[in-house]
């Protein structure tokens, strides 16, 4: 047994040494896949951990938490809850996202009752120079990361914008490290006073008496709480907080796994060809007494070694990558999901193990098919020279591939699973794998159809490919996979971008936009401000927009409640309505126009009647239409400005759109607007063009990661091509020797290889384009829709794809040529004598 093992070690070692270059590529490909996957996982986990730590700071170790809309709920609820017999302690909180006055950005400020928060949320209790700092109306405590971000220390001041006036707050101290996330704490009374929240709270955290049943109390409270106010255990709010980014995180993970998938394909190509090259050697081992099972197992073990090496490297590289990415792009990788979250990478053993296993698994799966094939071979015939080709010539039955295809098409029609497009991914995987399985036949058919070139190298290249379609397919697997994924992503992103572009056209009809702040609770334009702005010379008409947030479902993120003047008889003028709209009749409740996510998630369809929790009441609305909104993934409801004002008395505005008189100039009006109101200098004034540019920049930044992951997939595809070509050339060096004898020049042999590379790549590209197009449909209509609930129109970037295809073709041809060159540098002449 010992000698057996040793001899196998020698065989494997020899094979590894002989194959060092391609082996390195395989290891690199697995490493790249694992690195990307692990990095994405680390970053996502860091962001979520940080987010949950931040939420945990706020929630402390409350048993239940009461959450309301951002506008808050009546503080009498606190009195009611504090009086409940099961409640040991109730900690009231006023939470605002305050707009910073001196710099751009915002700061989450928690107004707490230090006495009641102390036992529940100790992380929020600051230590001032004296105890009263926690109670003073002008003091604030910052978390470490907030202090770092704002570059302030104890004694400095922070200005936040309330309305349009700055309010100066003295930094009385920095919270302990327990308080994670970018937040600030001040006295609850001060917060109510300063931010116009008198009588309002946004959350109450409850500590129950020992022995009290949290679930029972939750059920009981649920029935009595005002509309729009939710009671949950803290874990649930974490779920809600992370739900918004979940689809994004999962999609990113899947995208990263694609790189690993193509890495596995690369291992497949390399192993397949390496095993073919060693076919006689392996046959000899079989003759010498190694069983089929031993052989297969040992060949798979070789794959596992490659996988383990790659995975180990990948984990290290992934950590480094994540560290760099987080440092330079933040934990959302530029997508904007985790604002105010300061992630720290933490190594969790299970994640490292998972990605290690995935890396090894990909490599093992990649080497499984060739290993089984090698084990299945009849040792007798395999021992004969020339049998190498035969192994790759066979065309297998097409049925499994076709079955996978059909399964994929079927899966694309299935609904999401817990908000995730699981079947969309399944469909894509099925189509890809099915295509790869069908590749020999597809390649065969395509190559048959190709015209035979006149020049000998080209003709020979085509003959060779036609003669051994299996061999071409091995190279093709990685190419087809990476090209189709890249093409599908390119089409999806282009469609998305074009749709965003079109959408921006429709949502930016005015001449000028002025904004106090869309995302914060504190900065706004008062009705007096609006009057003054409307009176500025050159202003023909203004359209104020108010943004609030309401909670429709405690398990989900808050939904934006927007209000502006909308013409109910034709809302298309003010909203990018998708599909039909309903004009409310005289006995209908007031109209509300909802965004696509709302229609998807909450089933708000045009004509249906809904109730929205506004100002602590359940207010009936008629869904009068669905509009497209790429700005708020959590969903938004637009109601008439008059409706909101009459319901809440809130006549402020977050932003205003301006239509100018024909003779007015943008510049002059902009300046006049800023000068017209106190604090006007804090307004952001922008033209539609500027907003469009910023939006598209944000869009591109969001997709920068996807581009990077795509590029990695393509890179691995090219690795695969290069690797398999190198292996093929080595395997065919006798043939080249013969051709050299027969009078083919080196250049002609090179040309032949380039032609083969070209033909293989062309086939790969053609199939990749076709499958990519199909997958893009799944991405657009299934994955994206189910993940983000965004509708978009298909837009194929023909020119870009053309350029991409040409570049890829050139690159692939070059890759084939270079790897052929390298292989040709060995003495092919002697190879004709080299009968194993």
């Amino acid at each position, binding site marked *: 047994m010992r000698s057996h093992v040793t001899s196998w070690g020698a065989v494997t070692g020899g094979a590894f040494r002989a194959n060092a270059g391609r082996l390195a590529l395989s290891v690199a490909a697995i490493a790249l896949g694992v690195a990307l996957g692990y990095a994405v996982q680390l970053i996502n986990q860091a962001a979520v951990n940080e987010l949950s730590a931040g939420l945990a700071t706020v929630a402390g170790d409350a048993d239940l938490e009461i959450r309301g809309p951002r506008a808050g709920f009546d503080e009498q609820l606190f009195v009611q809850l504090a009086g409940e017999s099961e409640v040991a302690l109730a900690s009231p909180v006023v939470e605002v996202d305050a707009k910073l006055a001196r710099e751009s950005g915002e700061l989450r400020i928690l107004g707490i009752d230090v006495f009641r928060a102390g036992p529940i949320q100790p992380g929020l209790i600051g230590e001032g120079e004296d105890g009263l700092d926690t109670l003073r109306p002008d003091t604030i405590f910052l978390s470490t990361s907030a202090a770092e971000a704002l570059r302030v220390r104890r004694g400095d001041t922070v200005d936040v914008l309330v309305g349009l006036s700055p309010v100066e707050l003295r930094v009385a101290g920095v919270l302990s490290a327990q308080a994670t996330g970018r937040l600030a704490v001040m006295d609850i009374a001060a917060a109510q006073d300063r931010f116009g929240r008198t009588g309002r709270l946004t959350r109450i955290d409850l500590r129950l008496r020992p022995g009290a049943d949290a679930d029972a109390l939750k059920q009981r409270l649920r029935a009595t709480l005002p509309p729009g106010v939710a009671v949950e255990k803290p874990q649930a709010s974490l779920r809600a907080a992370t739900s918004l980014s979940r689809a994004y995180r999962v999609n990113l993970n899947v995208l990263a796994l694609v790189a690993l998938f193509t890495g596995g394909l690369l291992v497949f190509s390399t192993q397949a060809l390496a095993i073919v090259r060693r076919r006689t050697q392996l046959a000899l081992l079989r003759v010498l007494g190694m069983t089929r099972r031993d052989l297969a197992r040992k060949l798979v073990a070789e794959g596992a070694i490659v996988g383990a090496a790659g995975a180990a490297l990948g984990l290290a590289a992934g950590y480094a990558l994540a560290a760099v990415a987080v440092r330079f792009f933040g934990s959302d990788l530029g997508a904007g999901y985790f604002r105010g979250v300061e992630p720290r990478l933490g190594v969790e053993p299970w994640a490292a193990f998972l990605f290690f296993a995935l890396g090894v698994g990909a490599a093992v799966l990649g080497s499984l098919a060739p290993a089984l094939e090698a084990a299945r071979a009849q040792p007798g015939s395999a021992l004969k020279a020339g049998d190498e080709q035969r192994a790759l010539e066979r065309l297998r039955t097409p049925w499994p591939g076709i079955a996978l295809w059909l399964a994929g098409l079927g899966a694309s029609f299935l609904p999401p699973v817990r908000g995730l497009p699981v079947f969309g991914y399944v469909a894509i995987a099925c189509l890809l794998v099915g295509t790869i399985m069908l590749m020999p036949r597809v390649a065969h058919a395509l190559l048959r159809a190709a015209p035979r070139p006149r020049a000998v190298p080209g003709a020979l290249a085509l003959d060779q490919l036609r003669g051994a379609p299996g061999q071409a397919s091995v190279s093709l697997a990685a190419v087809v996979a990476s090209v189709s994924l890249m093409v599908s992503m390119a089409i999806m992103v282009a469609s998305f971008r074009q749709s965003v572009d079109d959408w921006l056209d429709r949502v930016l009809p005015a001449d000028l936009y002025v904004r106090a702040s869309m995302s914060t609770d504190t900065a706004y334009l008062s009705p007096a401000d609006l009057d003054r702005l409307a009176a500025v010379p050159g202003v023909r008409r203004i359209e104020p927009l108010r943004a609030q947030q309401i909670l429709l479902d405690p398990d989900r993120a808050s939904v934006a409640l927007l209000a502006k003047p909308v013409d109910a008889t034709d809302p298309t003028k003010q909203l990018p309505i998708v599909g039909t709209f309903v004009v409310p009749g005289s006995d209908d409740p007031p109209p509300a126009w909802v965004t696509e996510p709302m229609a998807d998630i909450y089933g708000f369809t045009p004509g249906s009647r809904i109730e929205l929790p506004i100002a602590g009441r359940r207010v009936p609305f008629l869904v009068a239409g669905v509009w497209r909104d790429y700005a708020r993934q959590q969903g938004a409801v637009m109601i008439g400005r008059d409706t909101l004002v009459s319901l809440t008395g809130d006549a402020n505005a977050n932003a205003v759109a301006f239509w100018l008189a024909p003779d007015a100039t943008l510049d002059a009006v902009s300046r006049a607007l800023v000068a017209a109101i106190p604090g006007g200098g804090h307004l952001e004034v922008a033209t539609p063009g500027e907003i469009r540019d910023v939006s598209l920049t944000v869009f591109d930044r969001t997709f920068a990661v996807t581009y990077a992951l795509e590029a990695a997939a393509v890179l691995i595809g090219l690795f695969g091509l290069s690797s398999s070509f190198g292996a093929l050339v080595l395997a065919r060096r006798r043939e080249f020797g013969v051709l050299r*004898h*027969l009078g083919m020049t080196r250049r002609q042999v090179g040309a032949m290889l380039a032609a083969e590379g070209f033909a293989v790549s062309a086939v790969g590209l053609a199939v990749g384009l076709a499958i990519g197009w199909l997958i893009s449909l799944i991405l657009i209509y299934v994955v994206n829709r189910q993940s983000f609930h965004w509708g978009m129109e298909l837009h194929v970037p023909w020119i870009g794809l053309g350029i991409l295809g040409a570049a890829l073709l050139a690159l692939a041809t070059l890759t084939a040529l270079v790897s052929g060159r390298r292989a040709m540098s060995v003495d092919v*002449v002697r190879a*004709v004598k080299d*009968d194993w």
Partner: protein
Amino acid sequence: MLSLRDVTKAYAGPRTRTVLSGIRLELARGDYIAVMGESGVGKSTLLNLVAGLDRPDAGEILVDGVDVTRLDDDALTVLRRARMGFVFQAFHVLPYLAVGQNVALPLALLGVPGRDADARVAEMLAAVGLADRGASMPRELSGGELQRVAIARALVHRPAVVLADEPTGNLDPESAAQILALLRERIKASDATAILVTHSHAAAGTADRILTLTRSGLRDGAHA
């Protein structure tokens, strides 16, 4: 037709191994010789040098009056393409080309127009007894048949020099005899100068003349 003048070849290594030393050989058009010798004595090297696939350390090799040692790789390749034909022990019929395509390969490389080439290929296949197998794939053929294809391919473009390296090494004695007879017949039919390298006395016996390669040079006659 073919002259080797004081050809010397050594392989560099830990200990330089001189394979050929001062080889002289003059062959006229139509000469068909067999070269015998022990393994490792340099028979194949001799063929490679003649074919221009390897370069001598010293001496001249003239093919049709052209010193092949002075040609660059491309010129050598063109020379090989036009003036030489090869028969290998392992046949080396390209598996992905049909029999006819294999035979047509040298003509294609020489740019012989399709119709002429087709006629020549048909003629050659008939000559080697495979008239009806032109469309067959190599895997459908036996070893003897494959070597017939190789012979057809080696001679289809009427080379001036034919080089055969153990052409029957992979064949049974009966097939071997047939192939050797066929080879001789085709060589003579095209009036080519041919060198047959072999271990087999029987094979060598089919040549016009037998030379034996030893450490000290080429000598007439067969030594066991």
